[in-house]
């Protein structure tokens, strides 16, 4: 008898960190499996998190596969389930099922330079790839990270990014001028254009608001990145996570199974219904 895919495992919230305050607050959760029978995951995969009585949400796993003690999730407060998650405390138990979806082809990227471009909470889905690349430092080329938010308060993982500066080029940005901000002022795509990372032997990985992704891709192409060297992730409303409920269906794909990771070459082939 195979395991019932709808039945979640139980996860205990081991740590909660406030990343971004305000109406669209972001908190980072470290969740460890209650009975130790968790699952392994690959970069880019997601998990369904349950708050019983409220529902389930598909969230990308923000920790790297080599981190085994817990799974990390950075969650923005947007609706019923995420608001309930934001009300939880350390020690509270949630449901976790997964891992779902495809993965970033990180093994194919050995020896290549990696350019990460994130906006807002969109740093979370690409975070495990950044961590993996830095963890196996010798296997990959140069790592650069472009990351921006509306204001400096909207940036998450700030301490981690600062620590990372020795190992990677970190290019932060905020949308508008603010006191004490020494880095780039402007939108993320402009920062990318400004720093002009070289497309030679490089892969660009981007995630963020749809409008940001659109212009990032445009700018990357101007810089000479080809469609199959640009990767992004998409999201759609999901319920089952296992390719049955039909909600995330786009073209022949079910994003929960065939996505969320797409090369721009592949994504272009899908109807723009995400």
């Amino acid at each position, binding site marked *: 008898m195979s395991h019932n895919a709808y039945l979640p495992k139980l996860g205990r919230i081991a740590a909660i960190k406030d990343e971004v305050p305000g*109406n669209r607050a972001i908190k980072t959760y470290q969740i460890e499996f209650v009975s130790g029978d968790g699952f392994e995951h690959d970069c880019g995969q997601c998990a369904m998190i349950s708050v019983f009585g409220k529902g389930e949400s598909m969230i990308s796993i923000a920790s790297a596969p080599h981190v085994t003690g817990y799974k990390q999730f950075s969650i923005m407060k947007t609706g*019923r389930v995420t608001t309930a998650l934001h009300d939880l405390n350390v020690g509270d138990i949630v449901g976790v099922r997964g891992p779902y979806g495809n993965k970033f082809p990180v093994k194919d990227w050995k020896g290549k330079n990696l350019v990460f471009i994130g906006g807002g909470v969109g740093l979370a889905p690409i975070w495990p790839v950044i961590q993996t690349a830095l963890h196996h430092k010798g296997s990959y080329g140069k790592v650069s990270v472009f990351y921006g938010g509306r204001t400096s308060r909207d940036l998450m993982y700030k301490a981690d990014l600062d620590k990372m500066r020795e190992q990677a080029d970190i290019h932060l940005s905020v949308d508008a001028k603010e006191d004490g901000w020494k880095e780039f002022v402007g939108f993320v795509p402009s920062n990318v254009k400004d720093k002009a990372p070289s497309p030679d032997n490089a892969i660009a990985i981007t995630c963020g608001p749809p409008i940001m992704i659109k212009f990032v891709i445009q700018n990357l192409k101007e810089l000479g990145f080809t469609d199959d060297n640009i990767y992004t992730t998409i999201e759609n409303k999901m319920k089952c996570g296992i390719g049955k409920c039909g909600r995330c269906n786009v073209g022949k794909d079910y994003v929960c199974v065939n996505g969320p990771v797409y090369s721009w070459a592949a994504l272009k082939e899908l109807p723009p219904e995400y």
Partner: protein
Amino acid sequence: MIDVAAIKAHAKALLEKGTVRAVIGYRNSTAGLLAEPFVFTGPESVDDLIYGPSCVQNLALYLVNDKKERAHHKSDDARPVAVVAKGCDARAITVLLQEKHFLREAIHVIGVSCEGTGVVDTKKLARKLGGKHAVEIDFDGGEAFAVTTADGVQSLPAAEIMAERCLECRGAHPQLADIAFGEAKTDRALHTPFQAVKHKMKEEQDNRWSFWARQFDRCLRCYACRSVCPMCYCEECVVDSIQFAVLPDTTAEEKANRIKWIERSPNRSESAMYHMVRAIHLAGRCIDCAECERVCPVNIPLRLLNTRLEMEAFETFDYNPGSDMNAPTLTSSFKDTDPNSFIR
């Protein structure tokens, strides 16, 4: 008899002169006997316009949809839209005007009288024809329909295959119209209004409950009754699963705290809630086009439910929905003589 050619000529002239953006009317459907609502935008397309007993749909719905669509596309064409309206359609438009859903000058009503007949009930027709499929239906004089089957054309008394609501109709001639086709017949000696409701009210309460409980059990919650109702224009309904009106400043808490009044499960209790909410929301607004009942794929007698309060509106409060666009609505008005003895 309705002069369909004259309706077409009028519609064509409107579009040729450009006095209207479009004409909402009917055309033949490939799906079966009944007509298909269609939005005619060019003068030449009007060649497909039809009118007959197969034109059952209430086109007031498409005025509501047109408004939504225009908002979506941010259309700035200020010309009115024309709509073909039977008596019941015109009553629906009147209610929408009364509720200020759109302005009178935004619509051009092409009224069509049902004269002595009405529209066909395909279920009655199927029973009448036994196993044969009707492929065409038309008016045949003032009191009959000409029905075409594989065996040829036959004339059937309209009263035998007409929709129940037409038999009980109290306003077969559109009161609200910029132009009207057909004559107003005052001697429609068909059924007594509210006959079906009154008949059901005579039943024992427990039997009525068994009857409705069965209907609520059978409901699929496909929401066709809601979708087809011109009065169900709320942007968001209590049965919808999420909040539709999401603005940039809508907070997560607002979305999270949205009350789930009715569960999605097609249980008796939840479906009862759904239909009751709709019936109450239609009080004084339902103009008895009976589209809800017609579209129900499992034949839930929704007209019976929704006309119950219409009967009350008419008989207790002397209120006739769709008769006066300037009158206050049933539930936004009161009289000193309203019933009071039911209150302790």
